[in-house]
Each structure stands twice: as structure tokens, then as C-alpha cells.
């Protein structure tokens, strides 16, 4: 992924306020998206995003400006995400989001937002370890070895989690009846 340049990262480390603005502008989409995929609601994703940027700013002296910015930044983000999931005492695979039933007659008019909501719901049924890998792949566009660095696991483990995560997502998203209906939309 194309992140901020090393010069901006160094300025961020030094507490430059403009550099913080650059970081927010560059990563707010990814961070918000990760929040949505991990936590499942817009409000939670917004709180998560704020926390990530503020926490990064407060802990910026822990970032080594000689090293790439993204692994440090996304590691911090994922740690916060995990903490929020722990605070919720979320049980992997639990069904804690209301299922939205798409009316047959409204199928043609299914809004993009509803589809995204369905995706988010399907994601909440996955184990968090799969969810975080998919979020880093599909929201932050991180490569296999970058995800491995962020999560502190091997690239092979990342590959396995991504594969299993996608399998589980496909099962949940295209579960009986929904797939044919969604395909029409």
C-alpha cells in the first residue's frame, strides 16, 4: 500500500501537528473500514478511529522513525481493536448483530448501504482472528508479509487465516436463500 513518506513519518514522530493531519487524511478510510469490519457498527468504528489516531499521537515516541510507519501504526490499531473486542467480551462466532431480512419485493431496490450492512453482519459471525486478517487485507490493502508483521505471526499463518476467514465469510454471507436473492440485486 502507498502510505505516508518517511519524512512525514519522522515529523509525526517529532510531534508535528501538520504531520498528524497528513496521517489522519491518509489513513482515516482504512482505519474506519477496519473498525467497521472488526466491530460491526458505524458508531463503534468512529470511536475506534478516533482512539487509534489519538493513541498513535500520544505514543508516537514509541515509533522508530527509521522504520516503516504502517506496521507500527496498524499494529497499534489492531491492538486497540482487540482491546475493544475484549471489553465487549465478544464470543467468537456469536450472533450479536440483528439480522436484517431483505424483503423479496424490495430486492431490486436493495441499497448499497444495506449490502454493506449485510457484509458487516456476516463478518461479525467470524472469529476475530479471521476478521482482523480480512480487514487488513481488504481495507488497508496490506500484503501477506505486512499483515504478518502487524499481527506478529508467520505469513503462512496469515494465509491460512485469510483462507479460512474467506470460507467462513462466504458461508455466512451466502447462506441458504440469501445468495440467490442477493445475486438478483
Amino acid at each position, binding site marked *: 500500500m502507498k502510505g505516508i513518506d518517511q519524512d512525514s513519518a519522522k515529523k509525526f514522530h517529532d510531534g508535528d501537528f501538520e504531520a498528524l493531519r497528513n496521517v489522519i487524511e491518509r489513513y482515516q478510510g482504512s482505519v474506519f473500514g477496519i473498525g467497521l*469490519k472488526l466491530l460491526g457498527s458505524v458508531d463503534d468504528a*468512529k470511536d475506534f478511529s478516533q482512539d487509534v489516531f489519538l493513541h498513535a499521537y500520544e505514543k508516537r515516541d514509541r515509533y522508530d522513525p527509521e522504520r516503516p510507519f504502517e506496521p507500527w501504526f496498524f499494529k497499534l490499531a489492531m491492538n486497540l481493536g482487540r482491546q475493544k473486542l475484549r471489553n465487549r467480551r465478544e464470543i467468537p462466532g456469536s450472533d450479536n448483530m440483528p439480522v436484517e431480512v431483505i424483503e423479496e419485493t424490495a430486492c431490486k431496490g436493495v441499497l448499497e448501504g444495506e449490502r454493506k450492512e*449485510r*457484509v458487516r453482519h456476516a463478518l461479525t459471525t467470524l472469529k476475530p482472528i479471521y476478521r482482523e486478517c480480512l480487514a487488513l487485507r481488504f481495507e488497508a490493502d496490506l500484503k501477506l508479509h505486512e499483515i504478518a508483521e502487524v499481527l506478529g505471526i508467520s505469513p503462512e499463518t496469515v494465509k491460512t487465516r485469510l*483462507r479460512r476467514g474467506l470460507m467462513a465469510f462466504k458461508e455466512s454471507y451466502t447462506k441458504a436463500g440469501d*445468495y440467490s436473492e442477493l445475486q438478483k440485486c
Partner: protein
Amino acid sequence: MNCKNAEELIADRELGLLEGGQVNELEQHLSECADCRKLADEYAFAAEALKESRADTVPPALADEVLAKAGKIHGKQSKIFRLAVPAVAAAAVLLAVVLSPVFFSKDSSDMTTLQVLEAYAEDFEAIGMEDGIGDYDTGFRYEDFGVSDTLTTYINQ
């Protein structure tokens, strides 16, 4: 290749993780297996939904709210810095003045305690604090610190 292996490769393909030789292998299997072709359609559909669900928009106030909160942190840190630096500097100057006789006037490494005290006195005089030393002379009594008369006499000698 069996259908279980094929499913893994289908998933890898949608994740962009398929390696060179595996592409042909998978294509070959799909051309022969209708069930896996259906499965491949479902995976493509699910992966597409994941890609399309990217957060292309963020709450409009997000950046402003973060910057406002970060500004408070930034301001707080600057304020601490503004107050702390002069305070530390003032303390350092005061300490330097008080300890200067010890560090700068004479080399005290081979001096007796009495010689060190005399050196203090000379330096205090030199910087105009002789009145303070006078008070020190008249006001100080070993007895106040629990030292016996015998020992006091010995020390004074």
C-alpha cells in the same frame, strides 16, 4: 486435484494469493467440475462484496474531531514544556550557586572536613554571604543534634 483442494485454491484466487502454476491447475479442475464452478461463483460473489464494502466514506467530522482532541494533548504537552523548562533551569542555577564552592573553588579530594568547611566559609565570604556564615557560627550547636559534650569538645579541638 480433489474438490477440497480446489476450494482452497478458489479462496486463494479471490484473496490474490494464488501462485503461478496453481492457476492452470485450478482452471483445469473447474472445467471438469460443475460443483466447484458453482462454488467459485459464490466465492467471487462474497469476495466482491467484501471489496465493495470498503469504507469509501468516513464520517465527515472524524478528522476535525481527532485534530481538536489531539490539539488539546498537543497544547497540554506544550504548556508542560513551557513551564517545566524555566523551572528546571532556575533550579539548576540555584543548585550551581549553592554548590559552586565545593565544585569550583578548591580541590577538596585531599582536604579534611574542617578544611572543606573553611573553604566553604571563604567562598561564602567571596560571594557576599559572610553575614549568613556569622549566623551559622553563632546559631549552630552540636548539642542540638544529640552530640555529647565530650565529643563536642573533641570536635572543636
